């Protein structure tokens, strides 16, 4: 194989970067220079591969060899063995958790077999900082087709026919949204990309922006053409410095190549894109709040109508779409609406990107066809639950969503099924929980978040969520009653019905869904004053099983408050009135004699 075609692709996503990924790239470059290979071999810093647990990831092309958990010190061996001698570095190859045999190529990974990559098509493949790489991978091809062959109405019809629905959470049909914006005539219109990914535990949008920023730019220009707008704005979190940097460089390069700005591709169509920064407010994911934030105001939502499509940014018709929605546009134009509509379920077409995280073996980014089951996602792609524990629940939709349980494992995942199951698609965070997680605490955790993020404009959300949080706090402290459970439910329903925007309308979902699916756990907290998962500190008691205790005194010595007494070689005792439940004794005990009751 000719040497100059060899490429070393190093994942430059945030997870890998945070794991010494930058040093890996630096060392690979140094090794290449030391061997005078720097001009023959291209080092590419790509976007996320989606294998975040296994990072940093290095891929060698051609051959598609994947190396995992690469340390800066491994750079020497990769260059001297693989690059120079063509011998694969066995010890760094990915090992399938089941087969235990090293896998060579990305395609062999079980986690990749069920995936279809549309929005993530170029992530981990192209160098996001080089527009030529994007163009070589069909970047801006759809734009050229649109500008030269299609009328705005044609573009809207294609998107409508494809059945694409908004990927940011609500699932509103994208084509319809574009059509409404198109029909509202105005001298000034705006295309806005919502990249304010605030859902804790979700990193889909950032990965698309970091891995393939041109996909978003191209789609925004296409949208601009379709709705007859000439200005685009990307609203992005300031907490995503890498994504911001890549977007900026992509915008500049697109301008240099005549793909952005005046007279795009010589067709006479003008469109330019600007970046606006968020400043950490979850509510700004809501369209009207986002628009206010872009206008330099507090990000408070307003009543719809008027919808942004009628009166949005600066009072002009504005079309807001999410990053992932935009990332699906170009393939739909190139491959046709029928192709996209052929993937997925009856009412949810195409694929969905999920950020798979929590107590799962393969944490990472996946893109799967709509209609896949939770079982396939968790046990096949995700490699099952960590440490062989038992699956308990999966939270979708973040703080606005709900949990899915064992009985939902075979439910095909799409917009409508998730809503019917008391959860929602949300932006695509999928957090897996195991038997050790207390569902009351999880609900409280999400309420913590909503209380902090509520903008305070409408009282059901501002006051109601606070009260919900207090009730949950009571319950986890063992002060709750059965009547509190009814109160939780009633208040949740009122908040949902009366809140102004999507945040308040969905914030009680985690409470309602855990209450429905894990009522026994709530009851154990209020009637037995016990936390079955052993998470709620106030409800647990450390206890020494005398039959297992050999009297080694290790626990008594480590106890910071002197709550453990006992003679040497005699079973010890914990005094619950002194014990502060720090768990130090349990960690120390080598005989499994200490348990939580």
């Amino acid at each position, binding site marked *: 194989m000719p040497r100059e075609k060899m490429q070393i692709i190093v994942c430059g996503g*945030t*997870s890998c*970067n*945070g*794991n010494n990924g930058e040093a890996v790239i630096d060392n690979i470059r140094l090794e290449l220079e030391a061997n005078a290979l720097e001009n023959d071999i291209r080092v590419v810093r790509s976007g996320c591969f989606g294998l*975040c*647990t*296994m*990072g940093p990831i290095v891929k060698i092309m051609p051959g598609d060899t994947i190396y995992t958990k690469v340390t800066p010190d491994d750079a020497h061996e990769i260059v001297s063995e693989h690059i120079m001698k063509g011998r694969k570095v066995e010890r760094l190859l990915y090992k399938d958790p089941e087969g235990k045999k090293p896998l060579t190529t990305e395609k062999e990974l079980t986690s990749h077999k069920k995936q279809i990559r549309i929005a993530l098509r170029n992530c981990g493949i192209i160098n996001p900082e080089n527009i030529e790489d994007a163009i070589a991978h069909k970047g801006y091809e759809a734009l050229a087709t649109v500008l030269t062959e299609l009328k705005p109405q044609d573009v809207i019809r294609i998107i409508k026919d494809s059945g694409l629905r908004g990927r940011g959470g609500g699932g509103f049909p994208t084509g319809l949204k574009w059509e409404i914006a198109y029909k509202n005539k105005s001298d000034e219109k705006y295309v806005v990309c919502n990249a304010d*990914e*605030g*859902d*804790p*535990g*979700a*990193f889909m949008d*950032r*990965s698309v922006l970091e891995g393939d920023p041109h996909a978003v730019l191209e789609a925004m220009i296409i949208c601009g053409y379709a709705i007859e707008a000439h200005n685009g704005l990307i609203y992005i979190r*300031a*907490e*995503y410095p890498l994504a911001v940097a890549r977007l900026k460089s992509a915008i500049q390069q697109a301008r240099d190549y005549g793909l952005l700005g005046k007279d795009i591709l010589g067709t006479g169509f003008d469109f330019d894109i600007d970046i*606006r*920064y*968020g*400043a*950490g*407010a*979850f509510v700004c994911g809501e369209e009207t709040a986002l628009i206010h*934030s*872009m*206008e*330099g*105001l*507090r*990000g408070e939502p307003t009543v719809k109508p008027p919808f942004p499509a009628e009166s949005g940014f*600066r009072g002009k018709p504005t079309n807001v779409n999410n990053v992932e929605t935009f990332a699906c546009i170009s393939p739909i134009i190139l491959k046709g609406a029928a192709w996209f509509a052929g993937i997925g379920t009856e009412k949810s077409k195409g694929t969905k990107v999920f*950020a798979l*995280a*929590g*107590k799962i073996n393969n*944490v*990472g980014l996946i893109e799967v066809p709509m209609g896949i089951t939770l079982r396939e996602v968790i046990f096949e792609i995700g490699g099952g639950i960590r440490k062989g524990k038992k699956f308990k629940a999966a*939270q979708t939709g*973040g703080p606005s969503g709900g949990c899915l349980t064992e009985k939902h494992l075979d439910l095909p995942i799409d917009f409508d099924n998730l809503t019917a199951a008391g959860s929602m698609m949300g932006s695509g*965070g999928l*957090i897996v*929980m195991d038997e050790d*997680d207390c569902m009351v605490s*999880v609900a409280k*955790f*999400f309420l913590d*978040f909503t209380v*902090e993020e509520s*903008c305070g404009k409408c009282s059901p959300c501002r006051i109601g969520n606070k009260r919900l949080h207090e009730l949950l706090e009571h319950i986890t402290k063992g002060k709750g009653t059965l009547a509190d459970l009814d109160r939780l439910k009633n208040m949740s329903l009122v908040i949902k019905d009366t809140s102004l925007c999507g945040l308040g309308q969905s914030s009680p979902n985690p409470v309602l869904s855990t209450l429905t699916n894990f009522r026994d756990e709530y009851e154990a907290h209020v009637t037995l004053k016990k936390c079955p998962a052993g998470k709620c500190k106030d409800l647990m008691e450390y206890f020494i099983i005398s039959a297992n205790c050999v009297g080694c005194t290790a626990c008594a010595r480590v106890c910071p408050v002197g709550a453990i007494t006992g003679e040497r070689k005699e079973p010890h005792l914990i005094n619950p009135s002194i014990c502060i439940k720090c768990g130090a004794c349990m960690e120390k005990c080598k005989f499994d004699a200490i348990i939580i009751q």
Partner: protein
Amino acid sequence: MSSIKIELRQEDVNKIREICTSFKNDPQELINVLHKCQEHFGYLPAEVQEVISNELVVPVAKVYGVVTFYSFFTMTPKGKHPISICMGTACYVRGAEKVLEEFKKELGLQVGQTSADGKFSLSSLRCVGACGLAPVVMVGDKTYGRVAPDDVRNIIKEYE
């Protein structure tokens, strides 16, 4: 507004004016102006907000309203080594709470506080997007992954 009273030097005022002019003194650019000022000063004391209010011709109450609305803006100076513990859901289910408790105990600080010597400040943040490394702690720009409560003392030691 805030307990900290500072005297702005003329060059500080000039810097703020320069930032405002770079955004054409457009009130709609308030958030961008605040970002740039926080980048420069490290935080946004009341005095800085007053200058911005004058330059953009926006009531100072409105500037304050925006500063306090967004969690990214702060009115207290951060420590030399700002420590942030990710409390995103992925980190939470993998034990971030215990890590945060350990930091609070070791540093004697609550979330949002800065140590008396100005060395450390403690904050929690929502998802840095490195869920593969959960739980995640950031000290300045450096990311620490898979942090256990036992690691906390060693992390702090690196900066002492």
